[in-house]
């Protein structure tokens, strides 16, 4: 019994990481209907950025966030203004193709720069530390990841519904042309949206790199998890991505408990079931 409960708790905490993967993806889809195929590779890029920061500055990976988050935001803004804005229009195909190409380019650049050897961010004692709750032993790092995920979503939610920036995001999301006539520069607003999305990728990348080893090729796998969490949770809903991440995480750990080989399979099956039964996810955005 305890073992099952343990699997579920681990799954919930793992869901926090998946929610971090998904939040950035959901955010830019919500603001500019851009499906970013390179999202997973950008998370991996952030992990490598953290690796370099740790090696050069000799700091703890969590401190590297202070470098990775601003750097990723800048990359996001520039990427959007110089490249992705040119692809956005009535046709959804160009941004898909361009971000797919970007994914290939990023993987190969990382391969050139860092080789295919698996790397890991060394978090030190925090990786093995745990707290006991009854018969359960909960790892500090997964717990921290989950707490950060909740904080990130609270933050994004706050930005969206309580700040001028959030109103800009919602205005362009609602009607780009009218937003322009209200004085909004949509290119700039989109740039800020991708900057925010990649800031979240930065956090996700560092926590991913501390949790498991990574190499330049694992981005597409993270993209699938992010997609699944977004779809399960419901498009456009930030809290939905957390719920989606948790459902996916629990499905994987419980599946893995039944048979160690079924971990990923169980996640995909639950995703397909949700897609079949509730194609709009659990918490679709109520508007529209």
């Amino acid at each position, binding site marked *: 019994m305890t073992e099952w409960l343990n699997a579920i708790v681990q799954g919930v905490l793992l869901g926090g990481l998946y929610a971090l993967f998904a939040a950035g993806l959901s955010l830019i889809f919500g603001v500019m209907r851009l499906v970013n195929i390179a999202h997973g590779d950008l998370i991996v890029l952030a992990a490598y950025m953290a690796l370099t920061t740790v090696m050069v500055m000799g700091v703890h990976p969590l401190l590297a966030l202070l470098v990775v988050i601003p750097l990723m935001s800048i990359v996001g803004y520039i990427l959007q203004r110089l490249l992705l804005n040119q692809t956005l229009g009535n046709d959804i195909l160009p941004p898909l193709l361009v971000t797919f190409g970007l994914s290939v380019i990023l993987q190969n650049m990382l391969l050139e720069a860092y080789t295919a050897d698996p790397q890991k961010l060394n978090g030190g004692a925090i990786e093995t530390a745990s707290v006991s709750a009854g018969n359960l032993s909960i790892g500090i790092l997964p717990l921290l990841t989950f707490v950060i995920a909740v904080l990130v979503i609270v933050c994004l939610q706050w930005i969206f519904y309580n700040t*001028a920036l959030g109103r800009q995001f*919602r*205005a362009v999301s609602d009607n780009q042309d009218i937003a*322009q*006539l*209200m*004085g*909004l520069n949509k290119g700039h607003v989109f740039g800020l949206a991708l900057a925010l999305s990649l800031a979240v990728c930065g956090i996700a990348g560092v926590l991913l790199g501390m949790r498991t080893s990574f190499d330049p090729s694992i981005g597409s796998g993270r993209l699938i998890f992010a997609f699944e969490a977004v779809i399960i949770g419901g498009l456009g809903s930030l809290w939905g991505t957390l719920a989606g991440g948790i459902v996916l995480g629990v499905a994987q750990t419980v599946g893995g408990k039944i048979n160690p080989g079924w971990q990923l399979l169980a996640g995909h099956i639950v995703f397909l079931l949700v897609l079949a039964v509730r194609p709009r996810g659990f918490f679709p955005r109520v*508007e529209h």
Partner: protein
Amino acid sequence: MSQLLAVNHLSKSFGAVVVANDLSFSVTEGEAVGILGPNGAGKTSLFNLLTGALRADNGTIEFCGKDITHTPAALRCKNGIARSFQIPKPFVGMTVFENCLVAATQAAGLRGARARQHAIEVLNDTGLIDKANHHAGKLTLLDRKRLEMARALSTRPSLLLLDEIAGGLTEAECQTLISSIKKIQSAGTTIIWIEHVVHALLAVVERLIVLDFGKKIAEGDPQTTMAQDAVKAVYLGVE
């Protein structure tokens, strides 16, 4: 009074459809100008050209003495040109207040409490204050039309473009609209108003411009302009 807007030989066509045909006119500061014309005469297209939603094929647009022919839409709005839409297009995912707040922050450049204050004032003036926290997507047609006006006013425009804002209103609502437009004009805002409800238009404007197939066919004092044969022919269908 100095000249606020000057349109010089403006032309725009979509294939064979001409929406602006060598169009020239000017508007002085504080003036209220009405634009009449049958459906398809290029009235709304003219607004699209003025706000930057459409690019002119030929000709120039000067606003406050500056050539804005190639200025992006967002910048024209910041410089003081705002419009309302014939078919209301609020940001449906936001509240009425937020709709105005976006305009006050982005276009009028107000920050924090001042932006909120301005949005509240505009909502007061347009009679929407009671519905400030309603979702814009759930408003009635009349309130959506009010919101069109409120959002345009929130940008603190020096030139306000109104597109068939009186259509579909009852007579009493129309009178309220007329008095609020007069109030806006007397506060110093220049107005260009496209309207099919002629009596509402004539109650406000000091000058009329009549368009047909993108071409200016008459211009001048409302009463004399309405009496011209060419205007009667195209607009009222009287030979």
